[in-house]
């Protein structure tokens, strides 16, 4: 039997298991369509805020000499209201709308902007490591997480995902409160707070000094988190962190993820990487006798 790339993350059904991660390229519907037709199963938008944000000044992105990338773009985005009008005409692309804010009312306002759009899910950014008063600073506050998730769940029937990352508290506490508050799925993880100093100029390269580390170096950490979450909770998981090859994607499935997101590898290999990974997964499934993605999910925990 021909193996299928289709997967479900709880109620979310996708034809292919690889998504574009938030923060990457997600700024125009034309680009979303292009990525979808290049093999992405879904795209996650840049994290949208209530008002437009310009982000930090450059340098905002730099590669790391040992591998991977570091960024402090500063969540630049055109704002939820502008963005929702842009994607109103979307017909084909499964779009996950990423939202960032400080208080439940921000999220409620933003979700309401998308009432006329085809949205596959909302992904709450509780883990951006380089902007004050949002992201990790919210994710590290269990009471606030609870209020935000409850508010969003009361505002929409569309699935809601929490994106967690490594902050100052145990990220499993954020997962715990999210599951308790009725979240539909977890994305793990975000970039990890880090920095790069240039030895010639003797200063940090990023204008914000600190940024988030992404790409290959964080994959084993992300994998560990997915494994831990899936061992402890019965919740659909989207793996994110350094996915660069089909083998990486399979590892995440075996650890317990039903889907993966990728971003940094696009900076190295450009967007052909989606179909490369899709084809690799399919071959692996055929070679190993899997007909569906779900048959692989969490298998590593049984060993």
């Amino acid at each position, binding site marked *: 039997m021909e193996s299928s790339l289709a997967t479900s993350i709880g109620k979310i059904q996708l034809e292919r298991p690889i998504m574009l991660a938030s*923060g*990457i*390229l*997600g*700024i*125009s519907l*034309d*680009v979303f*369509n*292009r990525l979808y037709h290049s093999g992405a199963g879904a795209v996650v938008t*840049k994290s949208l805020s209530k008002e*437009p*944000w*310009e*982000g930090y*000044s*450059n*340098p*905002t*992105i*730099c*590669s*790391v*000499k040992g591998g991977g*990338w570091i*960024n402090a*773009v500063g969540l*630049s*985005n*055109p*704002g939820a209201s*502008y963005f929702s009008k842009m994607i109103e005409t979307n017909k084909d692309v499964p779009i996950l709308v990423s939202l960032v804010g400080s208080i439940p009312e921000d999220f409620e306002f933003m979700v309401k902007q998308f009432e006329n759009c085809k949205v596959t899910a909302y992904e709450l950014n509780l883990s951006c490591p380089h902007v004050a008063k949002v992201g990790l600073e919210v994710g590290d506050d269990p009471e606030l997480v609870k209020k935000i998730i409850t508010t969003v769940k009361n505002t929409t029937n569309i699935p809601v995902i929490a994106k967690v990352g490594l902050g100052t508290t145990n990220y499993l506490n954020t997962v715990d409160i999210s599951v308790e508050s009725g979240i539909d799925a977890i994305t793990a993880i975000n970039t990890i707070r880090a920095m790069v100093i*240039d030895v*010639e*100029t003797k*200063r940090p*390269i990023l*204008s914000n000094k600190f940024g988030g580390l992404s790409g290959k170096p964080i994959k084993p950490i992300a994998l560990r988190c997915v494994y831990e979450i899936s061992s402890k909770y019965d919740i659909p998981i989207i793996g994110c962190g350094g996915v660069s090859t089909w083998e990486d994607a399979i590892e995440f499935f075996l650890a317990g993820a039903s889907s993966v997101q990728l*971003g*940094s590898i*696009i*900076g190295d290999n*450009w*967007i052909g990487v989606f179909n490369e990974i899709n084809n690799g997964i399919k071959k692996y499934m055929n070679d190993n006798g899997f007909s569906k993605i779900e048959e692989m999910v969490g298998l590593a925990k049984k060993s």
Partner: protein
Amino acid sequence: MDLQRNHNYPKVCLIEKVINETHTVRTLVFSDEVMSNVLPGQFAMVWIPGINEIPMSVMITNESGKAAFTVRKHGPSSTGLFNVKVGQQIGIRGPYGNSFDLKQGKLLLVGGGTGLVPMMRLLTFVTPDDDVTVLIGAKSKEEVFFEDLANNLLKKNKHQVIVTTDDGSYGEKGFVTDMVEKLVNHHHYDGVYTCGPEIMMFKTVQSAYSKGFFVQASLERMMKCGVGLCGSCCVGEDLVCRDGTVFDGEHLLSNKEFGHYYRNKAGILENYKI
């Protein structure tokens, strides 16, 4: 060649020479083998420590192993680069992007302002049999630069360098795009190449394409990463950093944003002021 070099990490170079092209335009020369060999249309991300990092087309020099950036002071970032002195450090990532597809025969190059930089590099690739016309558009006499350089680079070719100024204080009076229209109406061109203000490129592409000529333009947009991650430089479905900077005229005319809109730092579409 520096094979171990990670071209996505800034290579720090010292400015060795500063050339005043006009009162608002300077060329900053530095030594770097990789940058000295880039293709016309390719760009670098240039870090001015403590100020910003901006995309810049890489200028030619008359010394091997050296490259340059030609910058007009405009906003805080370009002014920051303009003010860099001899001996000061800048960081350079890249080269990024594609390059012009240079045809042979009768060629027309149309440049405005620092958009002339990739045009000058393109001139170093023409073959001796090519008949080359270079159009330089400027607002006034004080803002004309690279005219002598263009003549010099083409001294072995049949060629002409035409300068237009909006106020008529030098060369032909009028907009450079009116001269383009006039030329394409009277001559056949095997290739038309342009870089400069978007409206200038838009009209040049329209004029050349309407005559069925092969035409390409090198676009400029707000950039953060330069490698296709941030999405800031998208024009419709195209990413200037990764799919460009050079695009075929036919493709550009089918793109609803070209010539009309650019994205600001937040990603909101804004109109070009005509």
